């Protein structure tokens, strides 16, 4: 499954904007822009499908899973689901639960599509959270807290990227090292204590709503929208897919692959900074052990959302659906009073099932069914 192998699957090759003879990168990107728009006029692709029919079918499948989960909830707790106010509240609570991991997952999706992996996201969230809740930072008010969380996230992401691109470390190792180191630094700064946030503006991010919808949900929506535009409508996004799909071809097409990777990890770090503010607001505090195993939650969500772990393919909407599916499962188990152990087993099962389904290529499945006259 080497990315540089000449026998790349046709499907993945089709995603590369660099399939035409190597030309100026800006022109390539512009060309791919045109193809996207051209496709839109020819086949009018749905807004959530990105640029591939495969992704659309995958997302439809995920929405199906989501509906099944909600149906199970409605059947098992019909007493609760019969109250429309409660149902609306519950939807919001699922989205709030998904919001922090959702923001982290957007950054993670970019890194994975670009052919990397970021294991340090949970640790970056913890470090940024701890950094922005020290008494010294809190004395600068909400602006100072937000600035320091975002800057710390961005800076740690940049270090990750530089280590990987220019230090030539394997992403797995570099970000694993960062995971350990960032949590260590967070524990050092916080002196292993839970740091309570007294800032009413920050705490209000989690408790306040606008037009009946919590601010956390707006932040998630904004980050997802920005991520979608960045991936599907900009040169940066097209380059990300190209770099992840076939770095050598991307390099030959004139893309600065190293610099692009640095930017991807920085983007992931920035998302962690945003998530750190949201999580600090929710818990009204921060500590070195917070955001435990978020890296696995984010990777799992991206994978079941259809992002290819070896890079070159993925959608933001798919990742978002992945996160929402996980928080719906948590909610489903909570309202039924079932144990966390059972919930984790089901989560594991869903990850495996999603990846298995992905290995069965939709197109070849339809061909198979067609050959065997199982469909008309």
């Amino acid at each position, binding site marked *: 499954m080497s990315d540089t192998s000449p026998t790349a699957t046709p499907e993945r090759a089709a995603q590369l904007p660099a399939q035409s003879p190597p030309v100026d990168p800006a022109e390539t990107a512009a060309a791919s822009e045109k193809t996207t728009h051209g496709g839109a006029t020819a086949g009018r692709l749905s807004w959530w499908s990105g640029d591939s029919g495969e992704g659309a079918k995958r997302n439809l499948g995920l929405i199906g899973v989501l509906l099944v989960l909600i149906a199970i909830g409605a059947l098992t707790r019909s007493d609760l689901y019969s109250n429309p106010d409660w149902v609306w509240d519950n939807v919001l609570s699922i989205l709030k639960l998904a919001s922090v991991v959702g923001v982290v997952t957007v950054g993670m999706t970019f890194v994975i599509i670009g052919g990397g992996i970021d294991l340090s996201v949970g640790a970056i969230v913890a470090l940024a959270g701890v950094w922005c809740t020290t008494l010294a930072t809190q004395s600068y008010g909400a602006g100072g807290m937000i600035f320091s969380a975002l800057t*710390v996230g961005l800076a740690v992401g940049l270090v990750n990227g530089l280590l990987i691109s220019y230090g030539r470390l394997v992403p797995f190792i570099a970000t694993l090292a960062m995971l350990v180191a960032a949590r260590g630094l967070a524990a050092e700064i916080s002196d292993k204590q839970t740091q309570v946030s007294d800032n009413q503006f920050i705490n209000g991010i989690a408790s306040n709503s606008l037009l009946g919808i919590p601010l956390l949900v707006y932040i998630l929506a904004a980050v997802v929208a920005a991520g979608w535009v960045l991936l599907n409508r900009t040169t940066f996004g097209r380059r990300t897919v190209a770099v992840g799909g076939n770095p050598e071809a991307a390099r030959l097409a004139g893309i600065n692959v190293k610099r692009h990777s640095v930017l991807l990890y920085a983007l992931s770090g920035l998302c962690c900074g945003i998530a750190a503010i949201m999580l600090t607001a929710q818990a009204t*505090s921060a*500590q070195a*052990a917070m955001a435990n195993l978020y890296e696995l939650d984010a990777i799992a969500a991206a994978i079941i959302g259809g992002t290819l772990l070896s890079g070159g393919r993925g959608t933001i909407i798919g990742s978002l659906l992945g996160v929402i599916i996980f928080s719906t499962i948590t909610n489903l188990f909570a309202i039924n009073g079932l144990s*966390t152990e059972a919930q984790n087993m089901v989560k594991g099962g869903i990850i495996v099932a999603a990846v298995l389904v992905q290995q069965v290529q939709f197109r070849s499945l339809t061909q198979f069914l067609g050959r065997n006259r199982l469909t008309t």
Partner: protein
Amino acid sequence: MTQHSRDLSRRRLLFGGAAVGAGVLLAGCTSNEASPTEAQTKAAAPGGNAEPGQRVVIGFSAPAADHGWIAAITNNAKAQAAAYSDVEFKIVEAGADAAAQRAALGTLISQKPNVIVLLPHDGKELNAFGLEAMKAGIPVVNLDRAFPDAKAYRLQIKGDNYGMGVAAATYMIEQFKAKGVSNPIIGEIAGMDELELTQERSKGFTDTLAQAGFKVANRRAARFTADSGQQEAAQLLQALPKMDALWNHDDDQGIGVVAAVNQANRKEFFMVGGAGSKKAMEDIQADNTVLKATVTYSPSMASSAIALARLIGQNKGMSDLVELQVPKEIVLASETITKENVSNYLKLGF
């Protein structure tokens, strides 16, 4: 071209300057100077056991803390040792797991302490070390996490996890009786479910409730951190649209639980905490959240362990008891802190 490169260098200068500026600003933000929490020490009173005596070297090891309670254990032990002029305190970091702690303890033994005070990662895994040290003639004081083998320790001092559950349930039952609630809906936010102590706490809680004919309607396990507490509590509140009482095992994660309750605008129930953190006690005193009580599992036991280790080293007994030696086992009672008695306990909050 020159125009281009000048642009580039100016841009670089701007970016570099901004980066350095941000770095300086941020570095200034790591300070956490505040009035330090007063450690829980017992001042040496004149006369009796407190008189400086034979010099004692106490070796100490506790896991690297990742939350408030363990941090308080180490701080208390240090402060108590510093309060005695005749105690030399040698601390070794226990690292991240039982194997690392075993290695660290090896270096501690080579420094020939008179007594070792030890909070093991896992009592079962470090049982062999206890046996070895005792055989070498170094008395071991086991702090909180018991060794299965009675020969592995000279003194065992620990909190009462089962008793915490009992105390929390007892307080709730009293409240229900006073308010005339006959069929209460009770929620529980536990700590890390894979730990024995969590299971003991839950067992004490459900056993005591069962005697009064009550049961837990919904239970979620968090991870002793505020953010996990918030998430689990938010889901629990969703599952129980009306609730009468909630027990949360740990006050550190309770910061998140209280946050979730406030975010959901819920006020119809009362909440009982666990462990006895300073923040929880202040909340109980202020009486402006749902938190009305907490049951203790106090890290002050570390201070007591050092005091008793000193007595063991000096071959003395506890002066209030008739016995000439320190007893072999001490289990702290779990006390219930409410608004009425919180002022007595505030100094023990961590």
